[in-house]
């Protein structure tokens, strides 16, 4: 049984985008802040910090979740995947990212990392979703500048080319 006092820092070992890392965090540190401030993975954005906006969505053991509603201590021994993992090392966009670009699915890009991670999980489970299903998943995100039509079109483009 693990016990960490409020003033103590716990040692956390995780795999971030395929790389094994260790870092320290006090119990109250949110995963979103841990990623950004301790690990320097600033691709994950923080919007509302209470689970509504979806900007901070990452994959924990492959499953999309709000990093602002997860404690850093909870990912000890787990695999965390963030938006930084999507493009190739030379910057080539992956098919989902490319589809966002093709369909003008972003303007300011603040909400984009979370949306990309949600659909990375969802398209893995359901590679050919209906428009209705895409909208249902997208309802877990807020975009305040682009609007949702381009995002739906981008995901539809990826779904169309799925085998």
């Amino acid at each position: 049984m693990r016990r960490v006092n409020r003033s103590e820092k716990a040692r956390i070992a995780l795999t971030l985008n395929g790389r094994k890392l260790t870092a320290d965090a006090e119990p109250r540190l949110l995963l979103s802040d841990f990623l950004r401030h301790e690990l320097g993975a600033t691709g994950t954005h923080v919007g509302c910090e209470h689970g509504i906006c979806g900007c901070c969505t990452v994959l924990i053991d492959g499953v999309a979740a709000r990093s602002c509603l997860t404690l850093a201590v909870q990912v000890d021994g787990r695999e965390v995947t963030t938006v930084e993992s999507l493009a190739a090392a030379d910057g080539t966009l992956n098919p989902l990212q490319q589809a966002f670009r093709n369909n003008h699915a972003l303007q300011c890009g603040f909400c984009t990392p979370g949306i990309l991670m949600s659909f990375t999980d969802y398209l893995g489970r359901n590679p050919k979703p209906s428009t209705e299903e895409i909208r249902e998943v997208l309802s877990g995100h807020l975009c305040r500048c682009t609007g949702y039509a381009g995002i739906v079109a981008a995901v539809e483009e990826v779904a169309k080319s799925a085998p």
Partner: protein
Amino acid sequence: MKPRPFDYVQPDTAAEAVAVLAEYGDDARLLAGGQSLLPMLNLRLIDVAVLIDISRIGDLDSIRDLGDKIEVGAAVTQNKLMEWPQLKQKLPLVAAALPYVGHFQTRNKGTVCGSIAHADPSSELPLALAVSGGEVVLRSKRGDRVLAAGEFQQNMLTTARAPDELIAAVRFPVTAGQGTGFHEVARRHGDFAIIAVAAAVEKDSIRVGVGGMAGRPMVRRIEGDAAAAISEWAEELEGYEDLHASAALRRDLFRRLGPHVIEEAKKCAA
């Protein structure tokens, strides 16, 4: 915002969790999916001295078929239950309610028992548990006790759980082949409902439940003229006012949504 400091304990088994809970009682909160608790901590609406994380306890993470009931353990997420292959057949009302619970992303972590423990008066799973006549298994060092849904949820965010008790599981009666209906009105899909209505067809009557009209889900058997019965019931319940809706709007929504959900349940039964 960020939570205030707290101590963190991660027990490995349910027995350990119960022992830690006995040690801290009221000073502790149980963390399962955290989709209600963490927003409350982040917004500093509540304070906890000790957070007991039960999300990784393997013996709480199972869906068990007990024959006439389905038992859902404390660490089972809403999406895990939603993806359970026998859900539609054995628990049709729960299958109809689950898509309304939060979003895909929050259902990945949010637990079935956590939603029932949180006891929001307009939330879907407490309503489904109440209408289907389910029960809650409470575990402490003193032993297990089982409460009916109606005894468990007492008022807004208030339940019969004692400070040293862990909600080990909830049990939904198997209602294979039952005609059921579920609908709600919310500001946007995935938000808390302003009004949620559930209906289940029984032999000579229909069991109807409504969330968002009182401090907890209200359940009643309705026979004969559904519209008249709902209208009368809406007057009796009065409803309450909050940021999203007046009591009058709640009554009006219930009058309109109630008969519609009952019709749907009847059609589904036919």
